[in-house]
């Protein structure tokens, strides 16, 4: 099934610059419907209000981390199917294993490039 290029993507990061970078990369990839949140709590609130086709989240945020957001999303019957990619500087094996166990769809280590972002998105939502 073709990827809906107009789908809404939620980028969650406490650094405005990182949100701007990811949003621009997504724009370059053809996704213009990008929303953002500064931490897990704000993201969860936004997710409960509206549907997102994909969540791209940082891990290390306050007060709610990306990992906590992931576990909340996977525990919520309505939000559970939302594809979730973690984009983080946390590169310890235990982080990757914990995220996978919690149901993350893919994991990108910062710093990353556009090609990595695209390939992980393709593996999660399909080719575009």
């Amino acid at each position, binding site marked *: 099934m073709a990827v809906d290029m107009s789908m809404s993507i939620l980028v969650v990061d406490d650094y405005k*610059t990182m949100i*701007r*970078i990811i949003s*621009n990369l997504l*724009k*370059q990839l053809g996704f213009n419907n990008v929303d953002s949140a500064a931490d897990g709590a704000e993201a969860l609130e936004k997710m409960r209000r509206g549907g997102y086709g994909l969540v791209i989240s940082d*891990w*290390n945020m306050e007060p709610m*981390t990306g*990992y*906590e957001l992931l576990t909340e999303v996977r525990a919520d019957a309505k939000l559970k199917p939302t594809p979730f990619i973690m984009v983080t*500087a*946390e*590169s*310890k*094996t*235990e*982080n*990757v*294993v*914990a995220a*996978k166990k919690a149901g993350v769809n*893919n*994991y*990108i*280590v*910062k710093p*990353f490039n556009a090609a*990595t972002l695209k390939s992980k998105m393709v*593996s999660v939502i399909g080719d575009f």
Partner: protein
Amino acid sequence: MAQNNVLPQPIEQALNQLGGAITPEAHLTDVLAAFETILNALQDSSPESDAPANTEIQAIKDQLQASSKKLTALPMWNLARLKEAEEEVSTVVNATETATDKIMEHAEAIMNADSSNPEAYNTCVMDAVMQIFEACSFQDITGQRLARVSDTLNDMEEQAVRTMNVIGADEPTPDSEFSDRDQRKQDLLLHGPSNEGEGVSQEDIDALFD
């Protein structure tokens, strides 16, 4: 027998005097001075004929004075430098953010530039590229600021090690300073960025998801 329990008057006076002087807030130098006072009183009350005891007391007094000298010779901790270092780091964070914003702004200008007019497009791109070059100059200033912070931290570390050696303090074990914040970091696996050569690579992660 009861007479044996009565302290010589000078010692009793010294102890009474010290009773109020040594408090939990007392400085280490105050404690050493207090011991010296007791030793002086002991020396005063010791018969001159008791040469071994007097020699022993004098040796302890010499040792105490040497320790006092070491303590007073410790460098003053310039806490203002720590405050300055904190401000330097804060300035670096702000400068980095400002420069990044500027670079992003001009990169976005290039990305959104209308290429239908080659001349205008070229002017726009060249102008943006020059602005990006200018913004990158932040690195020189922040590098110098971070070098100063590094100097301060090295000096503080040196002072801390010297102080610990003089007072005979052990290095704190990781458990002794385990705060609630550390507990949260451990529970939520908040390690932060790995140092170079540490952590798993993107290729290793990809293998876990294939």
